[in-house]
């Protein structure tokens, strides 16, 4: 089977078969990162541009390592060093890059829909590495891969996503992906962090952490951004932590074998208490990072016509 699409823009328009194909392909790439010589020639001669209009360390690094381990040439462009500051439009930047004939452009942008604009304009494959509060498909795929590995399945699990759902592309992509794969998704956060009509996505929303995580198999905590305080989305980190920090006490409400996830970077003591974050029995945060490289290798491989 091959991936029947030019671009990876979101999980919303992905089928269960496509998700399974990506996860299985990623599984086969996991081993490469454990080798002494972490490189295979699969994508030799292919060029991949990482076009990052928003600050990112882990996602950009993860895509870069994924490309390099497959022997592709990866080029990083960040907004601060590109012609963006000179006032060039995204469309002109895209056409310029297109003329240099890369194979894949990975884009991260603060404006929702920017990767879609690009995908409609250029012939190259576009991977959305996060657009505004819209989607972050590679993150959801690595999250699903991590859960599947730890739990042996996705269907039938209860997954609680907690935090600033309103501004979270990770939440949206995971809601689509996990729901498609048969998991039951619930979200929780203060009412100011729950987007309007979120339950129309087929999930349940709570304002109490305790209600959401009760009997959960997976608890996914989202990063809180301090600048939201200025917008009065929440009054203070102190109060947020008192109501929504996952700790030794409230975690008892979840299933005994619960796993705890976080897309990173963590605010220790705000979203997750340090002893939970560092507890190897439940925290799978570093597994997520590890799976991230494999999932991104799979995406690059499948989009450049691998498996044909």
């Amino acid at each position, binding site marked *: 089977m091959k991936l029947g699409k030019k671009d990876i823009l979101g999980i919303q328009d992905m089928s269960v078969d496509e998700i399974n194909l990506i996860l299985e392909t990623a599984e086969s790439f996991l081993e490469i990162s454990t080798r002494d010589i972490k490189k295979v020639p699969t994508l030799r001669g292919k060029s991949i541009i990482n076009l990052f209009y928003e600050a990112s360390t882990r996602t950009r690094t993860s895509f870069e390592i994924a490309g390099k381990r497959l022997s592709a040439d990866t080029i990083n462009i960040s907004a601060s060093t590109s012609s963006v500051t000179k006032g060039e*439009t*995204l*469309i002109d930047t895209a056409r310029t890059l297109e003329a240099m004939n890369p194979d894949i452009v990975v884009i991260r942008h603060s*404006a929702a*829909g920017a990767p879609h*604009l690009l995908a409609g304009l250029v012939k190259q494959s576009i991977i959305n590495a996060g657009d*505004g509060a819209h989607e972050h498909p590679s993150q959801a795929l690595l999250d699903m891969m991590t859960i599947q590995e730890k739990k042996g399945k996705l269907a039938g699990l209860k997954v609680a996503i907690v935090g600033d759902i309103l501004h979270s592309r990770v939440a949206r992509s995971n809601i689509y992906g996990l729901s498609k794969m048969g998991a039951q998704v619930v979200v929780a956060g203060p009412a100011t962090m729950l*987007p*309007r009509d979120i339950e*129309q996505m087929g999930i349940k929303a709570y304002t109490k952490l305790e209600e959401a995580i009760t009997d959960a198999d997976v608890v996914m905590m989202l990063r809180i951004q301090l600048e939201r305080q200025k917008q009065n989305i929440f009054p203070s980190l102190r109060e947020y932590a008192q109501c929504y920090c996952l700790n030794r006490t409230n975690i008892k409400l979840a299933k005994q074998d619960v796993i705890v996830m976080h897309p990173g970077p963590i605010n220790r003591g705000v979203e997750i208490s340090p002893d939970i974050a560092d507890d190897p029995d439940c925290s799978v945060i570093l597994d997520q990072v590890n799976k991230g490289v494999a999932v991104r290798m799979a995406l690059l491989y499948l989009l450049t016509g691998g498996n044909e």
Partner: protein
Amino acid sequence: MKLLLKGGRVIDPASKIDARMDVYIEDGKIAGCGKDIKASPGARVVDLTGMIVTPGLIDMHVHLREPGLEYKETIATGCQAAVAGGFTSIACMPNTSPVNDNHSITEFIRRKAVEAGLANVYPIGAISIGSEGRQLTEFWDLREAGAVALSDDGKPVMDAALMRRAMEYSYSLGLPVIQHCEDKNLSAGGLMNEGYYATILGLPGIPAIAEDVMVGRDILIAEYTRTRIHIAHVSTAGAVRLIRDARKRGLNVTAETAPHYFTLTDESLQNYDTNYKVSPPLRCAADVAAIKEGLADGTLDAIACDHAPHGRTDKEVEFEYAANGISGLETSLGLSLNLVHDGVVTWSELIAKMSRNPARILNLRKGTLAPGSDADITVINPELTWTVDVKAFHSRGKNSPFHGRKMKGRAVLTIVGGDIKFDGLATRS
């Protein structure tokens, strides 16, 4: 010039006429309406069998972009779009560059319109200097220069005390105040209607209450000061309800809506097409239903398209950075005719909302075919089917979400002051 329009169905709500008759025009005025008028020597006779003859259509809310933003539109190209769309009179908002907040810019707009020699152009002056919401403009002087109303459209007056003073001062001059109702604190950062589609698209929402709160506030100010208010481009069910209640209590509140608010919903934004980005934003299906009810029961007096032409550079960008607005003058009538096709309003009601009612709100001696009136006439072929093609727009603004849409009914003859300014009678389906 003498012109005899023979055999059309004449619909003139102001004179309560809806019958097959002839209209005779002489020296720029309506000389008479009646059955079988005999052509006098030298008169041009136009056979309008099967056509609908109405008072010249009036759009009371357009943006002509000149002075300052001529790459989007000029007064001349805006007027070409107007007459091609069946409009004989348009009122233009003051958010030009510089803002129309003084006598000389108002005069400039009128002079440019006369030079263009197509439609009647009525400038709307700014409420506050630079539309910055701080200091009142010279209302009396603006009126002397030809302004017919006042508005800080696009930059709503957030200061309630300033709005109160504007409504009191303008009322004594007979100038209506038109408010773009949007509480800027509630809408801050928003890019589309707040609701399910904003949630799944990850775009910051503009809640319906951003509009409703200000509609409610301005109705209260109009009531307290015993003045009047005109609400621009109503888009929400809540605003329709507030206006309906105010009218029931006898308050002097009038309102308009735009074709996109009874045609499209926020569901259309799913592929981030910036042509659907407007202010106020496209709302949900329940709002669209409420707008239609408001049109049907008369709560919404007028249809105005909020013609907002933009250049490609304003729209071919990320959704977040794209300008708001639709180039609407050449699709407004076609979309509004759907209200008749769908049985929402009658022919007579629709024509009233597009001629007599806006004339009444702006105190214009227009919008009727009564003898002695200016011979501003629109002839509509109600059966003509056509497809919207932005490349064929007369407007410089090709920004329309209606490109490719099938329409039924179109203006085929636009007469301003007795002269034919647009002739599409030869157009076939």
